[in-house]
């Protein structure tokens, strides 16, 4: 607990302000205990755990395939990123080869998820600072992305579209046209957002020079993702340890050096443009072929085969009722989620249920550094700094 307000020599007392857990600017159920001296924050203590639902414990009682649906709910603004990380980890344990079409489709949909997440970030960050119209424009674009997800998987948010072995369903007829229409218009929309914010004197005044934390502190305290890149460190798991065919795509890692809220805004805008570039490349070069791996013990057979062939029926029955066995071992799969470094630590004991699944989520690491960033600055700057960290409480608390 924060100490009781004390009488200062000048006769002023410090005020303890409880920000949250219900607060529009904390991006979820985060509670910050802020001790204020006038408008300056002298002490800050984050209190998390309000959204803890025991997802890691739940994963231990589900089969490997069932646990994919739980991973959507961890970071609910980038559900496909979490699906991807978990599926890659289990596929590494199994030693499965994923066909190229499934890999490229995964890249394309993961980048659409990155756009989804960054659009929500930009909209909510801008509205916290006061730029209310940006929120509605961002959600207009996000609506089209959610419709594309619905076209693929039937679900707008909790898609669970990636399964162990490839995709859940065959890509729907007409997906190329929808994605192409989106990708053709999106760069001009990003220009629109930049028109509203980048040279806007109020935006610059609220965000330039705010929210500084040194690179050594960031590395020591566990911050990852766009915050590191806005300080000049070119760290991106898509380039450093490429997964699911990212090495075949041509894109830049956005960096800046100023290390403030404005730089983080610029990094994420640039990431949106680079993601559009990747989606275009995936669209133009999408390989044809199977969309799931050739592994009858793990991957469900096509429904027509299941209804006509005996072996397919038996495999389907065994996979659905019992689940497939994964060889013993452990894997730490790292990917670049929109918020930073996301890693799944999956431990298998040779049975059909995971023994332990630990999610190393970027928001947990980023939030830990909140006191370091926030202490000593004005309370209005706290809102801008929190927004630039781009955390999500589902990601933090699991």
């Amino acid at each position, binding site marked *: 607990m924060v100490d009781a307000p004390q009488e200062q020599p000048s006769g002023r007392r410090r005020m303890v302000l409880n920000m949250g857990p219900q607060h529009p600017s904390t991006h979820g159920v985060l509670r910050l205990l802020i001790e204020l001296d006038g408008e300056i924050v002298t002490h800050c203590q984050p209190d*998390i*755990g309000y959204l*803890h639902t*025991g997802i*890691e*414990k*739940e994963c*231990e*009682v589900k089969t490997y395939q069932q646990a994919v649906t739980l991973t959507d709910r961890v970071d609910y603004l980038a559900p496909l990123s979490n699906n991807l990380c978990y599926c890659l980890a289990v596929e*590494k*344990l199994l*030693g499965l080869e994923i066909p190229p079409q499934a890999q490229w489709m995964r890249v394309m949909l993961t980048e659409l998820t990155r756009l989804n997440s960054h659009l929500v970030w930009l909209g909510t960050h801008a509205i916290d600072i006061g730029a209310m119209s940006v929120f509605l424009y961002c959600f207009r674009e996000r609506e089209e992305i959610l419709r594309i997800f619905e076209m693929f998987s039937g679900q707008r948010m909790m898609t669970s579209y990636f399964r162990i072995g490839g995709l859940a369903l065959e890509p729907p007829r007409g997906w190329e046209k929808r994605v192409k229409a989106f990708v053709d218009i999106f760069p001009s929309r990003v220009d629109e957002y930049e028109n509203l914010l980048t040279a806007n004197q109020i935006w610059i005044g609220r965000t330039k020079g705010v929210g500084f934390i040194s690179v050594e502190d960031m*590395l*020591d*305290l*566990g911050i990852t993702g766009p915050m590191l890149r806005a300080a000049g*460190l070119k*760290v991106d798991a898509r380039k*450093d*340890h490429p997964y699911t065919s990212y090495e075949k795509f041509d894109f830049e890692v956005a960096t800046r050096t100023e290390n403030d809220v404005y730089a983080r805004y610029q990094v994420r805008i640039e990431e949106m443009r680079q993601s559009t570039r990747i989606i275009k490349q995936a669209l133009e070069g999408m390989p044809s072929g199977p969309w799931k791996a050739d592994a009858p013990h793990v991957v469900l057979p096509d429904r027509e085969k299941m209804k006509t062939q005996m072996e397919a029926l038996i495999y389907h029955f065994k996979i659905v009722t019992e689940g497939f066995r994964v060889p013993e*071992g*452990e*894997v*730490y799969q*790292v990917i670049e989620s929109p918020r930073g*470094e996301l*890693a799944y*630590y999956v*431990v298998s004991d040779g049975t059909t249920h995971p*023994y*332990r699944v*630990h999610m*190393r989520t970027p928001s*947990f*690491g980023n*939030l*830990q*550094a909140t006191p370091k960033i926030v202490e000593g600055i004005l309370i209005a700057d706290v809102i801008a700094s929190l927004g630039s960290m781009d955390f999500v409480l589902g990601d933090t*608390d699991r």
Partner: protein
Amino acid sequence: MIPDSLREYPIAAAVDRFDSESITGGKHDRGEWTIEIAPAKIVSVCGFLKYDEKFVRLSSVTAVDRFPAEPRFEVVYHLCSVERKQWLRLKCRVLGSEPEVGSVTSVWRGANWYEREVFDLFGIRFRNHPDLRRIMMPEDWQGHPLRKDYPVTGSRV
């Protein structure tokens, strides 16, 4: 003593030269290196790995409950070297009754919340941790939910 499985790994050799009694096991599996460290040596080995071998980032601290095998808990650390783009897993086996291990917050401040989470959900205490209290569960919660003998569903009577 460095096991055969780690003989070709230069980091393991360096740790062995730093403290020949620290390594108790290890493996190289599916492209990932794991070194098992004696619990009493974990803080000094982590300091060596951060400052001498440049594993500047601690990615996560977590635990696995191997109930009913003893030593019951495995405390697992994942380290990252940003300049070499390398990852390393360290493991520490801790006994089930009154489990305790040294805190690495003196090496990486970012271990703070991760160790609090392990304390909260597994009950493993970390010596010299600046602020060891529950983080996810309410402060007055009894029990440690991620242990294998803790039920998945149910109501408290």
